[in-house]
């Protein structure tokens, strides 16, 4: 069965769901059915600066079973606490016994449905509004597997947890899903990587939900290095409890098309969030990012920083939204976006907006775009450094303040490697 018939006929979609997800609880089956209908009904999302129609996404046969393909290789050998999923199948998982004893649950989402059904039912889809968006509905209906992480109250997990979502070349529809719940006063550090093997065009819809309950702290990192053949839609959303915080560190490098959004909802007093986004566009990549902080409760804070490098014919759109609702007194919301342009054929758009409905706030944004400093390049070349190396150093200098503030050593190293590959490629 392919996507064309699936999209046209809701009955086919229902049949497909029943075949694919046979042994799931009723609530989940109902949920998948509802979202599958939403997926079929919704038109393509209107994105002003990312026309989706001409990409012919409907021609990707996303419901085919994965054909056997060459195995993927990546470097995560050193990760002590980890979960590795390939084509939605759990390949490897480890959590130190001390953490298991404290009640930390590190599971594949499919397994979590059996082991912690109440938590999954309570929180899955509680932060992302999947019904309002075609591709989020797609993930909600067809997610194959993903990460489930639960940290009990007052538990501190200092060891970073590394999660890999990988797709082999045979997988045309890749729908990873993540659910992270940090219970009251807990702490956790988690990093995810998204990989896919180059091959035929694939459609990727990823969803990550983070719930930081009162006083909890989640340090979340993500590095996305999907193949250029991947047409990617990714949504990350977090809900921040009272005096809790979520810190996002996001590196976006792969995918031919990337529509990525992350949103933090601050609807309890004292919630805080920060986000660092690093993006690097090359070749004919089209990257469309949205970063949003929604301040609903008093004394919440957000700080969103993004740095991007654009080369070749790449095109990027960065939309920052600081949305301060009435009653969110004492809010401090800031944004900073900078783009380094390395090619005359690249294009970068930025829309850093502030939507303010409360007086007692401080909100600020700044954005800039510009070329590599010619005088700096000349200076370096005058010292015997070749031009390509000089540009590499300037890119490093530009990204260092953001990348070096990523708290996870392993993620930091991976981001630097990705940057190096991009500079060379």
């Amino acid at each position: 069965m392919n996507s064309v018939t699936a999209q046209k006929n809701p009955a086919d979609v229902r049949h497909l769901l029943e075949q694919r997800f046979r042994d799931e609880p009723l609530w989940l089956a109902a949920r998948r059915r509802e979202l599958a209908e939403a997926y079929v009904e919704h038109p393509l999302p209107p994105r002003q600066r990312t026309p989706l129609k001409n990409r012919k996404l409907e021609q990707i046969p996303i419901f085919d079973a994965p054909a056997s393909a060459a195995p993927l290789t990546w470097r995560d050998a050193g990760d002590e606490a980890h979960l590795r999923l390939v084509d939605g199948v759990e390949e490897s998982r480890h959590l130190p016994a001390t953490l298991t004893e404290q009640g930390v649950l590190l599971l594949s989402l499919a397994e979590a449905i059996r082991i912690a059904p109440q938590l999954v039912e309570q929180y899955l889809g509680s932060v992302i509004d999947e019904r309002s968006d075609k591709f989020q509905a797609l993930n909600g209906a067809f997610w194959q597997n993903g990460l489930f992480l639960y940290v009990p109250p007052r538990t501190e997990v200092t060891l970073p947890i590394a999660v890999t979502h990988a797709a082999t070349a045979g997988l045309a529809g890749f729908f990873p899903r993540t659910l992270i719940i940090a219970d009251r006063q807990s702490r956790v550090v988690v990093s995810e990587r998204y990989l896919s093997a180059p091959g035929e065009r694939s459609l990727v819809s990823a969803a990550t939900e983070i719930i930081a309950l009162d006083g909890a702290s989640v340090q979340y990192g993500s590095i996305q290095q999907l193949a250029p053949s991947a047409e990617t839609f990714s949504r990350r959303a977090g809900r921040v409890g009272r005096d809790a915080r979520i810190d996002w560190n996001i590196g976006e490098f792969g995918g031919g098309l990337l529509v990525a959004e992350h949103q933090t909802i601050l609807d309890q007093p004292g919630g805080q969030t920060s986000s660092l986004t690093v993006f690097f566009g090359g070749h004919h990549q089209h990257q469309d990012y949205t970063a949003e902080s929604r301040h609903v409760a008093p004394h919440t804070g957000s700080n969103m920083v993004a740095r991007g490098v654009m080369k070749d014919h790449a095109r990027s759109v960065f939309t920052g939204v600081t949305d301060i609702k009435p009653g969110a007194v004492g809010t401090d919301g800031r944004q900073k976006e900078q783009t380094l342009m390395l090619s005359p054929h690249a294009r970068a758009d930025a829309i850093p907006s502030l939507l303010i409905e409360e007086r007692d706030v401080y909100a600020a944004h700044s954005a800039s775009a510009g070329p590599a400093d010619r005088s700096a390049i000349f200076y370096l070349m005058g010292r015997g450094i070749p031009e390509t190396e000089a540009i590499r150093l300037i890119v490093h200098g530009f990204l260092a303040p953001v990348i070096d503030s990523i708290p996870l050593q392993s993620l930091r190293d991976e981001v630097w490697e990705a940057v190096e590959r991009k500079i060379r490629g």
Partner: protein
Amino acid sequence: MATKPFVSDEYQYGFNDGDVGVLKFQRGLTRTTVENISRIKQEPPWMLDFRLHALDVFWKKPMPGWGANLKPLNFDDIVYYVKPSENQGRTWEDVPQAIKDTFERLGIPEAERKFLAGVSAQYESEVVYHSIRRDLQEKGIIFTDTDSALREYPEIFREYFGTIIPPEDNKFAALNSAVWSGGSFVYIPKGVKTDIPLQAYFRINSENMGQFERTLIIAEDDSFGHYVEGCTAPIYASESLHSAVVEIIVKDNARMRYTTVQNWAPNVYNLVTKRAVAYQNATMEWVDGNIGSKVTMKYPAVYLLGEGAKGMVLSIAVSGKGQHQDTGAKMIHAAPNTTSTVLSKSISQHGGKTTYRGLVHFAKNADAAKSNVKCDTLLLDDLSTSDTIPYSEVENANAEMEHEATVTRVSEEALFYLTSRGLSEEEATRMIVMGFIEPFTRELPMEFAVEMNRLIKFEMEGAIG
């Protein structure tokens, strides 16, 4: 903190001197309306064709799906043309007494006698009074109303009219193109510089009367000019529409400044298209103050088409009860070494809303172009809101764009400091507000700065007293 309003919701200039219109059309817009306007003005056939074409475009275009709420606007409930007196007043004595009284209260004659080159005072839809000082005439500067310009300078007029903003540009530009009346026409010949501003005063008077003035300014090579317009209008209960089109051509090495202080009554929909093109090493400056109206949508633009061209927008927006100022600036860099600067100051109070909506575009050939945009907003109470939505599009790797924005309240610290020096909280707030908009007021011509300060002072005192 109990902040007092900075500009009161009472409209100071809301007096109204009765309907003096001599010829007034029925409400609503049809082909016949447009044909009648053109016939009364005895226009050449090409202008009638232009108007009728624009009317078709207006009917075809949908309402904008973004920006302020325009739903209450009813195009059938508007009078599209009013001619206040049969002939254009050549001298002050010819101007009807009622109109004179209105100007008297706004302080126009003083300004005209002492400082101004020519007062092109637009009262309702037709320019009723117009004089040009001899020295301007001697320099070859044409400063007249747009209707006269069509009759008297048909060649220059036709060469430039509608070239910068064609009717197809947007729905309201199409409406203006169909029913335009009045406005100013300025032609500054090559190498001519004027040190005195050219000033026009605009007013809407009849209830529900649309005012569709059309301004066309041509600054030839190496010239300099400063055009100034200000607007106040009486209060009326039902909606009123002002939809102007302003086209400016600034040729090589010329410099043009266009200053507006706009204080429409709080029932006016002010939907204006303003655009300038700047050629090689030319400079275009928009100084734009939006204080009144119910809804304003206005984004002065500069198309930087020649190498080394410069564009500037300096603006303030003050929004009070029931008002939405949706304003901004557009800078299109389409040549190398072009530069642009935008400084926007917004104040929201009493539930008013201000939106900064701007665009900076660097085209592929905009090598070494630079742009700096700064937007600051002050929220004076808990009911007021503000959006800042700047768009930037960079297609050139050697262009530099910088953007900064802040949204703040009046700082407690500054208030505390000032009140501890013996100022009342009201005085302190006013001082902070005046300081906030000072970068704008200091760029105004002297008499405008005086009027602006007086307006703010009176209205703040009124609100506090």
